[in-house]
């Protein structure tokens, strides 16, 4: 039985570990400390935790100030409020000056569930990857989120880590390599590449199983780092499999699939299809219902593969 765990838990656990190992790490919260799992750090290290209240813009720039004194601040709230509401603060104060602020964007994707569109972040990948100096990571499970968070503390400059609300399968192990900016091939294949991030890696693996039964060999690539993007792995996938389906729990426009397409189009054009939110806002519902409603599940990926294979060259 696969263990189920929310990626936000991986974030919370990593912050506690950083609290023990790195005295420079401080954490700021905006009234959502339990939900973002930063409460775990706050309870253990109250002197290094700053509650800012429901004031995301102030939180981001307070973190910027702390970074200017040599601290490594982690700020977190829901993705819509942090990447959206505080975008100018992230852009002009943090990214422009390459400040060492780490941003945890919670509640990414429609799988947030019943809270509905207002709380389901579907745009942050676009909003964050467009900023110079920013690094963007969308880990596929709780263990990878833990590693991404630990890594974020090591590197200099702003980092955005997206995580989700719901428990999802843990598909990596503690010893699975995680290298920032390096994609990981989770399944070999030669007919098509499924390039995915976040929870969609899991759906892509399911889709690959289904495709195998249909005689299609699908490669599954976990592209956890969207910026800097692993061009080499994407070009290799294009050359070796000749078709790509990009999968994200996020708006297609400007997002993850677009980032993959930018590399493909310029270097080795092959037919592509995109699984993601198609220019709609989210809805209330259970996570399972919403994954189906927004055409994000493994059967939708299978359909997209069948479609893209029709257009494959030679």
């Amino acid at each position, binding site marked *: 039985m696969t263990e189920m765990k929310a990626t936000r838990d991986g974030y919370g656990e990593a912050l506690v570990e950083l609290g023990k190992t790195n005295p420079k790490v401080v954490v700021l919260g905006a009234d959502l400390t339990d939900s973002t799992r930063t409460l775990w750090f706050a309870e253990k290290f109250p002197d290094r935790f700053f509650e800012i209240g429901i004031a995301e*813009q102030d939180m981001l*720039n307070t973190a*910027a*100030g702390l970074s*200017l*004194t040599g601290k490594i601040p982690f700020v977190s709230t829901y993705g819509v409020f942090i990447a959206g509401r505080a975008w*100018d603060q992230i852009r002009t104060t943090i990214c*422009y000056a390459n400040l060492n602020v780490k941003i945890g964007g919670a509640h990414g994707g429609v799988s947030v569930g019943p809270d509905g569109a207002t709380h389901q972040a579907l745009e942050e990948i676009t909003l964050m990857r467009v900023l110079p100096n920013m690094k963007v990571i969308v880990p596929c499970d709780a263990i990878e989120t833990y590693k991404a968070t630990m890594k974020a503390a090591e590197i200099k400059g702003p980092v955005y880590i997206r995580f989700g609300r719901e428990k999802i399968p843990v598909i990596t192990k503690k010893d699975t390599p995680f290298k920032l900016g390096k994609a990981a091939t989770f399944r070999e294949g030669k007919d098509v590449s499924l390039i995915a991030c976040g929870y969609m890696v899991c759906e892509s693996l399911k889709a690959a199983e289904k495709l195998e039964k249909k005689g299609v060999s699908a490669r599954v690539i976990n592209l956890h780092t969207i910026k800097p993007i692993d061009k080499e792995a994407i070009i290799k996938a294009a050359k070796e499999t000749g078709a790509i389906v990009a999968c994200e729990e996020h708006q297609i426009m400007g997002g993850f699939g677009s980032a993959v397409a930018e590399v493909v189009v310029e270097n080795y054009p092959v037919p592509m299809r995109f699984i993601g939110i198609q220019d709609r806002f989210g809805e209330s519902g259970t996570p399972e219902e919403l994954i189906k409603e927004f055409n994000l599940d493994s059967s939708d990926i299978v359909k997209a593969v069948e479609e893209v294979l029709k257009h494959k060259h030679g």
Partner: protein
Amino acid sequence: MEKKKRPDIKELEKEATEIRKDIIKMLGEAGSGHPGGSLSSVEILTGLYYYKLRYNPKKPDWPDRDRFILSKGHVCPSLYTIMARCGYFPKEELMTLRKLHSRLQGHPHMLYLSGLETSCGSLGQGLSIANGIALGARMDKKDYRVYCLLGDGETDEGQVWEAAMTASHYKLNNLCAIIDRNRLQIDGFTEDVMKLESVKERWASFGWHVIEIDGHNIKEVMDAYDEAERTKGKPTMIIAHTIKGKGVSFMEDKAEWHGVAPKGEQIELALKELNMKPTKEQLEEAEG
């Protein structure tokens, strides 16, 4: 704890006039920029850099330096001028303001020019940054102080009031903010654009120690910085009443001089006036 001996007020007044002349010259050379707020903030910054602020231009990263956060980034001509005069970079470089590859960007960028504490230009953000630095200083048990200059129009921004709450909540008495209360913003008088009064009562009600001064009176400016340093348990806000465009009569109290650089004869007239009073005819000509 007043560490520094006070400089001679007459000398500082003379220096303020020289600073104003540099501002006019550099804006004239740049052909664009913001004279109004640059001129209104001269004494506020002179009091800081020539008296209160603890810094070393040869070691801009000195960990124990006081920090000055310019929140209203568009008035950087006055900051650049003072930084050059205080030894951060050669004065000749002032004439590169706003030009390609200049360290003196149209709005300040800390990665280009040592001595700048932040990059700024999008209004409303500086006070939050100052709070973060003040919190960091407290964590590190450092005694350096943090200063932050805001425009009065800038306080239209909601984030300023978020930051006002945070500074008060965390009792940041190592923080002193200053509002350049020149009563004008781009679209006109602040009270017509978006009513700010009572500025004093608003900040006091947010839990700040508030000092009101004539922002062109160097002695009052220095006294206010000393009073801020003596204040315990809360942050201090200095409301510095100023005149936008101060020192150049055809710019004074005129919103249209917020973001337009002087040209040709206007430059000459402004410089002449900063040395002596111009004739009525000259003034009328400049206005025309």
